């Protein structure tokens, strides 16, 4: 593990005690993000990607809680901070963008006030300064006629503009890290492209690290530098994006890439899509051994009994017996 990383997530484990037993939606997840780096976290629903994001900023909904592992931000442990300490991290050092821009904004407060309230919470500035800061933030995210839009309410914006406002809110405290949880899922394709480009540009300009949570392999490919593939709460594969997507080692990553339709690749158009059989196991019915083994096309006996550990291979880190066996 690099010690000078912006964010280090180490063996992070989240538990949800329920009546039918304790769920472990995030299980010993480790990865890190450097300054200015965009790291994608990809996986199907239930893979634990959003919960990982929430756990990092301490926003887990009770009864979910961090049960193990650590999160450090620039060498400072933040996973055991209390709510008051976390408040200085959130918004100030880690900005957040949620999926649905409409529901992320308080419908009863003008966006100017929402922006300046956030600025005042972190920057130790007065009302007038905060308002200026808010205006600048709106200009930065490309809201046209920003000055006149400061006193507008969320419902007066279009979907894409709203998400720009949310990004402005995430960036107003000049954070070192942005956690963007499916930021474009609710948007139209044409707008999605705009928003992703904006996010990419702003973060590169400010040298901000980004954790981009998405289920869309296309978005991963086009936007991120590195990718973390999650399956059933565990890391399946981590590596350079191009490496992972073009030469995936983990059968799950392979399957995921293969199942994603590609609009430009007409070569295999009349073929069947590469489907992974079955569905992701429920958190209560986690199979023994490798969680992916019931769906794996290359399943081996060892997979059914032993949990594979993460190991470094070529440019990726993967958790699979397949590669490990070949290596040994």
């Amino acid at each position: 593990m690099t010690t000078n990383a912006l964010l280090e997530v180490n063996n992070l484990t989240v538990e949800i005690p329920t009546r039918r037993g304790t769920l472990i939606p995030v299980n010993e997840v480790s990865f890190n993000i450097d300054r200015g780096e965009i790291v994608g976290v990809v996986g199907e629903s239930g893979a634990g990607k959003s919960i990982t994001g929430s756990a990092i900023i301490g926003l887990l909904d009770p009864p979910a809680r961090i049960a193990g592992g650590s999160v450090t931000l620039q060498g400072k442990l933040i996973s055991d901070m209390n709510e008051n300490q976390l408040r200085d991290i959130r918004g100030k050092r880690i900005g957040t963008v949620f999926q649905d821009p409409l529901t992320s904004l308080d419908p009863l407060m003008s966006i100017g006030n929402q922006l300046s309230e956030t600025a005042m919470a972190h920057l130790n500035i007065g009302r007038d300064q905060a308002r200026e800061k808010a205006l600048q933030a709106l200009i930065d995210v490309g809201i046209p006629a920003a000055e006149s839009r400061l006193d507008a309410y969320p419902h007066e914006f279009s979907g894409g503009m709203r998400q720009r406002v949310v990004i402005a809110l995430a960036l107003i405290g000049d954070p070192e890290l942005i956690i963007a949880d499916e930021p474009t899922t609710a948007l139209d394709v044409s707008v999605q492209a705009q928003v992703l480009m904006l996010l990419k540009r702003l973060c590169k300009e400010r040298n901000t690290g980004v954790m981009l949570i998405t289920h869309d392999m296309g978005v991963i490919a086009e936007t991120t530098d590195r990718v973390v593939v999650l399956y059933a709460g565990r890391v399946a594969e981590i590596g350079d994006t191009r490496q992972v997507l073009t030469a995936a080692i983990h059968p799950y990553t392979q399957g995921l890439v293969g199942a994603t339709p590609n609009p430009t690749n007409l070569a295999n158009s009349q073929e069947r899509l590469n489907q992974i059989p079955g569905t992701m196991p429920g958190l209560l019915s986690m199979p023994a051994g490798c969680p992916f083994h019931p769906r794996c096309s290359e399943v081996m006996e060892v997979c059914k009994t032993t949990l594979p550990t993460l190991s470094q291979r070529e440019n990726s880190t993967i958790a699979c017996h397949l590669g490990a066996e070949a290596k040994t």
Partner: protein
Amino acid sequence: MFAYIIRRFFQGALVLGIVGFIAFSMFRFIGDPYENILGQDATVLDRQALEERLGLNKPIAIQYLKFLGNAMQGEFGVSYRNGIPVSEMIAQRLPATIELAIVSALFALFLGVLLGVYTAINRDGFLANFIMTTSLIGVSLPTFLIGILLIWVFAVELNVLPSFGRGETVEIWGWKTGLATASGLKSIILPAITLGLYQMTLVMRLVRSEMLEVLRTDYIRFARARGLTRRAINFGHALKNTLLPVITIIGIQLGQIIAFAIITETVFQWPGVGLLFINAVNFVDVPIMATYLLLVGSLFVVINLVVDLLYVVIDPRLRLDGTEAR
């Protein structure tokens, strides 16, 4: 926005028209006005004279219009019981009821919102659960019993608060108020608690459940993610959004407060319109009963209009054209 208010206004007028019709029907069908007015030894001639005078020989529609016309001019007839014009009696009694209703409503609102917010924020706390459970006692006993118990404890046994009446009243700009004297203030405590307790519980539970829902919304989560303080989140964002649906209910509840004042006023001998009404019911004093109904209907309409305006003030989504779904 303007259209919205006009529409609500017409709706209110329609409501009043119907309430008026019910009130009018009471004149016609509840109790025999001849009997009530003339007594049993009336002659046929007497009856005809009365019929002429009251216009009872005209078609019903005309009678109704006449009734409405009179009502609009504040002309509600004369009490059968003591011959005083109803408008005068109501005007004399209304301040007492309005003061009681407002104090109860403020008590219910203030404490209800406070406790509602508290129990929502500390959802699983011991004290919050305790408040939630004990508050149910307030709605599990009939109002009159609570009133009698309060009198028993605070007036008879402890002898600290008055058991009846408004205490000293003074007139301020033609409004007879009990809120400006010490004895008046002391007198209003027990009735206001009796009347407001139920509504307080209701408001509290409503605020709690709405607040719990609001606290789960994305924008609260996002507000936390922005690192806002707990206070800014709970009061700057959550409470405001909570109050939106609560306001409507409170509007309706104010109407209920005025109606339930009937019981409180009876128990505490509070000289308001509720007491007047219940006496009128016993005496079949139809003019007073009908006027009371119209009054409650009008108050309700006005309250709802105010609530609607409040809604528009709070919710920017309604400010544009007021056509947004409600």
